[in-house]
């Protein structure tokens, strides 16, 4: 018997995959929002004058970057609820766990990106802020971050796409994202090709569109020519 691509099946399973794909998108959006905030927080903590603050932040970044996302995912999902029963309730939702793991993992990468952006702000800018008696917080929000972030948007964008492509790992803790749905569909009918092809195509299309949007965004945020 010769295998044939089954268009009728595609039409049949597409709505279901699209629904599951919304979970993938949601995990990416929440996860990356967390990574954007968490990374910034880690960066600022790492710059603290007090070692008691900067050192744990350093350690956290190194630790997260040196261990695989899948291990972190399992750790948060299976180990924490047992070791920390009081907080365990938080991690019983697979989706929440997945978002937390993605967010935490990518915080360590965005933190490095922010650091590069902040190092690129000339010392004179900090000095001008000090000469105007700006507080620490005001110096960050008015002077440093608006100059540090636009140049690193491409790098942040790359991590956004990378995280998006990492969301199928959530299959491992049974989040109902698109790969999980495709696998279920495939195993019910023993027809895997269409389902997995659609998943691949969805990732491809969204990645390409995101990359294009990020390039556009760089142009909007660019400073006027020197």
């Amino acid at each position, binding site marked *: 018997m010769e295998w044939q691509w089954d268009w009728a099946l595609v039409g049949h399973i597409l709505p279901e995959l699209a629904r599951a794909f919304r979970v993938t998108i949601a995990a990416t959006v929440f996860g990356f929002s967390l990574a954007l905030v968490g990374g910034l927080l880690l960066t600022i903590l790492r710059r603290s004058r007090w070692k008691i603050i900067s050192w744990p932040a350093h350690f956290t970044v190194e630790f997260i970057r040196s261990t695989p996302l899948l291990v972190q995912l399992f750790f948060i999902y299976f180990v924490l609820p047992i070791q920390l029963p009081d907080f365990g309730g938080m991690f019983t939702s697979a989706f929440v766990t997945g978002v937390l793991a993605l967010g935490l993992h990518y915080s360590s990468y965005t933190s490095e990106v922010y650091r590069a952006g902040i190092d690129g702000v000339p010392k004179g800018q900090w*000095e001008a802020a000090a000469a105007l008696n700006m507080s*620490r917080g*005001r110096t960050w929000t008015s002077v440093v971050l608006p100059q540090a972030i636009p140049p690193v948007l491409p790098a942040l964008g790359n991590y956004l796409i990378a995280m998006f492509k990492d969301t199928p790992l959530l299959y491992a803790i049974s989040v109902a994202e698109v790969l999980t749905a495709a696998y279920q569909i495939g195993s019910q009918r023993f027809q895997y090709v269409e389902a997995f092809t659609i998943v691949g195509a969805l990732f491809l299309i969204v990645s390409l569109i995101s990359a294009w949007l990020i390039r556009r965004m760089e142009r909007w945020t660019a400073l006027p020519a020197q």
Partner: protein
Amino acid sequence: MSDSTEKPPIIRFQGLEKAFGDLKVLQGIDIDIPEGQCVSIIGPSGSGKSTLLRVLMTLEEPTGGRVEVEGESLYTMKRNGEEVPASRAHISRIRRKICMVFQHFNLFPHMKVIRNVTEAPIHVLGLSKREARERAESYLEMVGLSDKLNAYPAQLSGGQKQRVAIARALAMRPKIMLFDEITSALDPELVGGVLDLLREIKESGDMTMLIVTHEMKFARDSSDRVLFFDEGVIREDSDPKRIFTNPEHDRTRQFLDTILSEQA
């Protein structure tokens, strides 16, 4: 007048020292500056002139000695009768009286000219947006840039940038203004205009001005007092007329001979 009622000098340096590693940049500076004085600070590069301003602006911490502003120590404060290192709040309260203009302008490149001048008055002084804008417009008019409110710094010439930086500092209405070689990065034809502006600022108020400069004509004709820095100490502290016609020290004479022949 007795000591208790006498007003302290607006700035007092006592035995001020600053070292970067083994390099001693300031080696015991003792000087009082009365309120309203316009002081030019001259001397060879590396003699510690800029460092003095930077210590006063709290951009560098001194390694010894004392800085007082209106009789209050900048880097220490009293707690339970003891002198302890100053808190951030203490430094910020005193630093409010001081502002600085830099050699390389240090404008905020992501803000339009007008916002460069309104940002700190709004967020540091607590002015309303309207008050800050009116104030900024009046200072930008004073520096001759009323038509550039909506330009970005990158669209301005060096001289224009420095005028914005001066307006930005003036808008803070500090009692003390520090000018760190503000004409050194400018094209020669733009220097005169910025120096005229400095003279105007001096005439228009009772601000205390410390001006690190290589413009000897300005130092001689437009300041109340000239300090000659050499190897981390004040070699000569003098009336501007006298230091240029009849300096006390050979080092001063050598320096002036060299630099005046260059500027002639």
